[in-house]
């Protein structure tokens, strides 16, 4: 059975440059100015899984993201990897969303983009790192979910997914019928890189833009979007009390190693 697959991806600041991000103490909004945006890494694994399913069972792969206009870039990258079309959910009304408002807009965007059998996501983003969106998106769609998926097998002609779901100390074997939301972890696959051909083809593919009115048409009230639709707020930031005062050990490598090991032995830590 060919599957209509939608993959949610997110543009995030380059993790190597997180220390350059600042937070406005008054509004609680994150300032990412000057930090290179990239596609959240685990989302590429979700896309790779979608492409493999399409190769095995047939179907089409749509990629969708919510973000500012420049988030189009991560859709273009996904099209170059092999996705068939892109959807950019972009509107100032979506700004400042916590996971609940984000999931509501994603669900409305998915509804407005067509009918789908399967939604794949990365299990969490590296910036927010809450891991809450996949389960909340499933709720907003009214679909079942499986998160922490590290392997997906298809039975009954692709109508049922058999998932290995990571759990502390092992895995759960979970079976889920479609439609469903499945959130994957990175070890599920190794993702491909775009080919020259893929990059050339990507330019011919469509990226649809959906804003506030498009989501309203899909049944979501404006009050449920963005900051206004977000129950949680950043109340402030503070520096945690440093419990440790670091003692830097200098000298060349050999001297430093000797001094450190001596201190640790003194303290009975070795």
């Amino acid at each position, binding site marked *: 059975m060919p599957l209509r697959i939608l993959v949610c991806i997110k543009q995030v600041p380059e993790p190597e440059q997180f*220390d350059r991000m600042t*937070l406005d103490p008054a509004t609680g909004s994150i300032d990412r100015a000057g930090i290179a945006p990239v596609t959240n890494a685990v989302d590429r694994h979700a896309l790779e899984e979608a492409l493999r399913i399409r190769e095995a069972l047939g179907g089409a792969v749509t990629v969708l993201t919510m973000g500012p206009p420049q988030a189009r870039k991560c859709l273009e990258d996904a099209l170059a990897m092999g996705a068939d079309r892109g959807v950019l959910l972009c509107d100032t009304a979506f700004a400042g969303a916590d996971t609940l408002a984000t999931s509501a807009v994603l669900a409305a965007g998915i509804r407005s983009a067509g009918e789908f059998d399967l939604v794949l996501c990365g299990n969490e983003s590296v910036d927010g790192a809450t891991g809450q969106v996949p389960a909340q998106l499933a709720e907003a769609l009214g679909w079942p979910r499986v998160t922490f998926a590290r392997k997906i097998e298809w039975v009954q002609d692709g109508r049922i997914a058999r998932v290995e779901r990571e*759990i502390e100390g092992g895995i759960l074997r979970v*079976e889920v019928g479609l439609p469903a939301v499945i959130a994957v972890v*990175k070890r599920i696959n190794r993702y491909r890189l775009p080919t020259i051909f893929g990059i050339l083809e990507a330019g011919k593919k469509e990226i649809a833009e959906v804003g506030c009115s498009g989501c309203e048409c899909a049944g979501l009230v404006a009050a449920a979007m963005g900051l206004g639709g977000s129950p949680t*707020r950043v*109340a402030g*930031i503070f520096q945690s009390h440093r419990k*440790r005062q670091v003692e830097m050990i200098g000298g060349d490598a050999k001297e430093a190693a000797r001094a450190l090991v001596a201190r640790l032995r003194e303290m009975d830590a070795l």
Partner: protein
Amino acid sequence: MMHSNPDSMKEILVWAEQRDGRLMPVALEILRKARELAGPLGARVSAVVIGEDCSVCAAELVAHGADRVFAAQDARLHLYQADAFTAILCRIIVETRPGLVLLGATSVGADLAPAAAARLATGLTAHCTDVHVEQIDGRAQPVMTVPGWRGSMMVKIVCPEKRPVMATIRPGVMDRGVPDASRRGQIVTFEPALGDGDFRARALEWVPEAGGGELEQAKVVVSGGFGFYEAGGTALLEELALAAGGVTAGSRPACDAGWVPESRLIGQSGRTVSPDLFISVGASGAPHYTTGFAKSKIVVAVDRNPKAPVFDVADFGIAGDLREVLPALVEELRRKT
């Protein structure tokens, strides 16, 4: 869906995760926190436990401070069934109208909590390291603390209007209390009404996997970060761990690169350890990583960047070229005293 009085903090609910009839340690950690918050508020603490047979867990929860335990029992709930657990938890929340709901941020709690929060249209804060109650705008409100994205930065999150306020708490960051067998509490055991819609995603089997189990017991943990690879990769990490009498672990980038298995991931989405000695090499020290070893007795950090935030959470630091420092460390560690 639910919009009870945001001033009401008379009930705190704890979801107590059990597996195979035994409570997860984090259940008792968050129960103690609930008890601590309930005191000044004059609130009641209830716990909900879901499983095949919850009798032992329920008694333990009472001994650890639960005034009331809702024990939802059914043979089909032996494993984590996402749909059924979400429905049961939501039902109990709607009926008891708590002001605050705490869940352990295990891989199961991290699936259950967001679904329940979405169904109740309320706010949820993930992976908290603390929850306290503060007077904000003239009323007592739960304030959640989560690590920021650099150094010692912490972020406070509130949920001003919607109730209940929900939070998942990182395992291992709070201490559990001392049980008191003489404590009395009400245990409400019931068989939840379950239909086909409660098993759309059906867990069939739990398959335990070896590896990583000894991490929490290890006296010495040697953890590699992304910068570690250039210095010699997995082999040198093993060598260093062996010389120090410890086990290996790694940060998220090291796991993603495949140098360290996921079962040995330290931090936010991995494991929390508190060994006698934690040695971090080549990890810059993102808070998502450092919260995973904050309670270690002694922390040593080695990184090439002297300004790396990892040094903010270390007792001893060496800033230098890992390709020189690490072999020197291995050699020193092997030297007999």
